[in-house]
């Protein structure tokens, strides 16, 4: 490579891990957050607020169980209100974690090693938040287990030709595999914590969790095979999950839902919002815990680039939706497009276009891609935009369909908002706990990134 280009390439390629670190310093720095650093007042305040929000969610759900879904804003024709909007939003956010841990592993993107652990935690907590909604939306939530095929005295079975049943299997498989992936990734780090801690109780707990991991070469070999295979299984799985979620809509005949672009556009949107959430979590975490050496500018830049690319796919999806509304010649499809732009929810559609398409284009500017503050706010805008996208798909499509006589409007109630903001509180509360109890960065995978880890044959 000619000399004059070298310097710009070096600039673009900020290191994945700052120079000067050894196996020991990497281990100490990451495990210290869990083992020795006392929890700050800020942690307690943040955790406390999120805990209260979680209690608010439980209160709202408790009241729902007493009164029924009538306390929500859902009515006919909008039978799928906030619950489904939030479900799709949360499950989409989870997708970035699997993308980072599985797809980037298969593509040998070693920079993922410093963000995969907490991205996977994010996936788990997001899926947990998502899973609440369909369960409490079924009307008789105490019977939600009827969705699973279990032998019962009624001698009936679920209806497997419905996309809603596919969703049950896709989401529960996704939750299980994500949990397994996360836990097995933690086993060697549990061993590190077991050997580092001087508190006997913690030694026992981490020792149990590590399953007696001792780092034998045979164990590592099987472990790596398992990890690679799990990544290979999780990759089609994550693509299938949001595809199946989009089938919930696309298989229906409602104008604005019945379209073949939905699966790819849903998957891209999921990764888009997921990376936005990764950045919104990573930027404060690296600052507060001094992890800038491990989560470097390179990670922020790469995440920004992924958002830019998936954002353009989402924009293409919107474009095709609009084009097909016109080109299909179907007057109901054409009306859906008109209604989005000029109907009672036009403000929200235009906000969605600004948040998801126009504003994120500033990511073409390198200065903004490398500025943590700017990225934090752009990510926030994208998360709002992606929530609005699901709102437009669910509510605006349903509120005016084929018959004028069945048109209506959707007015969410305070219980809708309490449940939604409550799940955000629960998600962040779990994140707070995770940061203090488990290593937020995969220690053993960080060791492999150091130059000392290289072995010549």
């Amino acid at each position, binding site marked *: 490579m000619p000399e004059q280009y070298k310097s710009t390439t070096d600039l673009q390629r900020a290191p994945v891990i700052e120079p000067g670190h*050894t*196996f*020991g310093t990497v*281990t100490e720095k990451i495990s210290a957050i869990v083992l020795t650093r006392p929890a700050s007042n800020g942690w307690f305040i943040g955790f406390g607020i999120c805990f209260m929000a979680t209690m608010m969610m439980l209160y709202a759900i408790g009241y729902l169980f007493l009164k029924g879904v009538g306390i929500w804003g859902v009515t006919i024709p909008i039978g799928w209100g906030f619950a489904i909007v939030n479900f799709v939003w949360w499950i989409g956010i989870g997708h970035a974690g699997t993308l980072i841990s599985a797809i980037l592993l298969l593509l040998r993107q070693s920079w993922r090693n410093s963000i995969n652990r907490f991205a996977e935690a994010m996936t788990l907590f997001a899926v947990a938040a998502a899973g609440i909604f369909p369960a409490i939306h079924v009307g008789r939530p105490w019977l939600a287990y009827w969705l699973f*095929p279990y032998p019962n005295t009624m*001698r009936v*079975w679920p*209806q*497997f*030709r*419905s*996309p809603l049943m*596919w969703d049950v*299997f896709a989401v529960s*498989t996704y939750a*299980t*595999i994500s949990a*397994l*992936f996360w*836990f*097995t990734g933690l086993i*060697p780090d549990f*061993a*590190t914590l077991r*050997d*580092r801690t001087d508190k006997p109780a913690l030694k026992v707990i981490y*020792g*149990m969790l590590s*399953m*007696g991991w*001792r*780092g*034998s*070469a*045979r*164990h*590592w*070999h*099987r*472990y*790596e*095979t*398992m990890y690679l*295979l*799990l990544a290979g*299984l999780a990759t*089609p*799985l994550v693509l*299938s999950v949001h595809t*199946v979620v989009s*089938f919930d809509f696309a298989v229906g005949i409602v104008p604005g839902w019945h379209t073949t672009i939905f699966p790819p556009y849903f998957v891209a949107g999921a990764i888009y919002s997921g990376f936005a959430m990764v950045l919104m979590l990573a930027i404060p975490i690296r600052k507060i815990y001094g992890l800038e050496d491990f989560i470097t500018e390179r990670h922020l830049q790469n995440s920004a680039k992924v958002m830019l690319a998936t954002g353009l796919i989402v924009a293409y999806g919107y474009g095709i939706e609009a084009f097909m509304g016109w080109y299909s010649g179907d007057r109901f499809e054409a009306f859906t497009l008109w209604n989005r732009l000029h109907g009672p929810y036009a403000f929200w559609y235009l906000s969605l276009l600004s948040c998801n398409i126009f504003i994120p284009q500033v990511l073409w500017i390198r200065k903004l891609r490398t500025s943590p503050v700017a990225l934090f706010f752009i990510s926030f805008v994208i998360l709002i935009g992606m929530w609005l996208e699901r709102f437009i798909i669910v509510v605006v499509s349903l509120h005016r369909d084929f018959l004028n006589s069945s048109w209506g409007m959707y007015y969410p109630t305070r219980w809708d908002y309490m449940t939604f903001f409550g799940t955000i509180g629960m998600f962040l509360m779990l994140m707070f706990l995770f940061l203090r109890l488990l290593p937020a960065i995969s220690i*053993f*995978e960080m*060791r*492999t990134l150091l130059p*000392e*880890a*290289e*072995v010549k*044959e």
Partner: protein
Amino acid sequence: MKRDPIYGIMAEFDSAQALVDAARTTHQAGYVKIDAYSPFPIEGLAEEIGFHHDEVPLVVLIGGIIGGLTGYLMQWWMSAVDYPLNIGGKPPHSWPAFIVITFEMTILFAGISAVLGMLALNGLPMPYHPVFNVPRFSSASKDRFFLIVFSSDKKYNAVDTRKFLEALAPRSVSEVPS
């Protein structure tokens, strides 16, 4: 049978390179029952100590096949045999509609068998193991690399094996009580 009071002899190294070189030398010297410990996976280290048969992929394959068959047959039996229900005139055995759940069940069973298979083949969970008796071994999960020759090896001899390991320029050599 009386247990051997000594489980093996363990040498400690500073770097991944030193461990790989030592493992190769030891294996080439004819020691078969050996093991190497490192704080992160080292490519090729398992081959150096004579480990070639990794059964995890086979376990995952079998798990995946069982999962796929379970998924499809479950849907077929429930929808077409035990409880046929006319939904929108679709045939009870609508195979295209069964593909999604068949796929998800394949992934679910394959994933679970990958994790359980890895743990079972590795003999984990195993909270106690003789190597933990060596105080310095706690660094094996941080920044040190260890090689052990088990006392069950045919070539093992308390004096000669120790001399052999000391010749590999380790940081320390210790006996592992069982």
